[in-house]
């Protein structure tokens, strides 16, 4: 059991940022009400994060990654079960690569 000092610093920074996010909304509401515009911006944020993270990774990951993501989305839309969705994505990536596609 060991830990690199830089890794510990990274974890500490992440933990601090996360707690600040968790506390921020609660704190802000006690001082100023969220405007409708702010509310809409925050509502659009989760989906935007997913799109902004996934598309470049899929583009870099090649055909196998793209097929995996499509399989995950299809399984999720079909059954609404997040575990099944991820399992479908991982299985699709493994199968496509077993077929020789990078």
């Amino acid at each position, binding site marked *: 059991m060991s830990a*690199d000092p830089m890794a*510990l610093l990274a*974890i500490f920074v992440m933990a601090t940022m996360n707690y600040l996010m968790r506390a921020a909304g*609660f704190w802000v509401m006690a001082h100023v009400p969220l405007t409708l515009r702010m509310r809409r911006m925050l509502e659009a944020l989760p989906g935007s994060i997913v799109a902004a993270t996934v598309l470049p990774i899929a583009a870099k990951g090649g055909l196998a990654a793209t097929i995996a993501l499509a399989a995950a989305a299809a399984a999720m839309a079909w059954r609404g079960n997040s575990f099944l969705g991820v399992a479908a994505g991982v299985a699709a990536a493994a199968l496509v690569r077993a077929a020789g596609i990078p």
Partner: protein
Amino acid sequence: MTVAPKEGRAAYFSLAGLVEGARLAAPVMPGMVIFGAAFGALAAQKGLTLLEAVLMSSLVYAGASQFVALEMWSDILTLGGIVTLGLVTATVNMRFILMTAALRPWFGSLPAWQSYPSLFTITDPGWLIAMHYHSKGGRDASILVGGGLAFWLLWIASCVPGYLLGAMVTDPKRFGLDVIMPTFFVVMLVPMWRGARAAIPWAIAGAVALLVAAIVPGWWFIIVGAIAGSVAGGFIDER
């Protein structure tokens, strides 16, 4: 067993509420164990020590940002890398702002030394369960904290076997393990679908992120893309 909500508006804590909160969280637990183990497995693949993985799960306790951190891990062991990681972490978890803002009418009646530590236990499913309980008139703050603590213990415990299994896999790509993080994100997106109009900001976020990824090295595409989508969302009137 169900706990009858007490009369009145003020929030309070109870032992029975902690147990009830954990019980309400039970349906989500299998999924959480799987993702906790997946995080451990991926952490082993990315070269974290077991202690680092367990510390991250227990102190950060936010799955989406932990998976993103693993993707970035090889780039972050410099001060500049850590600054980027901090910004990406804040961006990915900015959604907590809206979630805890919604808790103000309920948790606002508690003293700060009780409400602020409680906020650490917020997770997406735990928040959803607690808001549902509150909408039916419940005021017991331990529903949120009980569910959040149960999830927290499971999240840490599931990381360990995942790590040990992940350390044995020598070729993660062969088993598709490298796509866990992006598939996890895609799966989160599907239930958020509210029609094409509400998805316009997502399309803008994706397009901006692709552009930034093509011209700027590193992980800025997440921050710039997500903020572009969010700002677009603020200026699109829903009807």
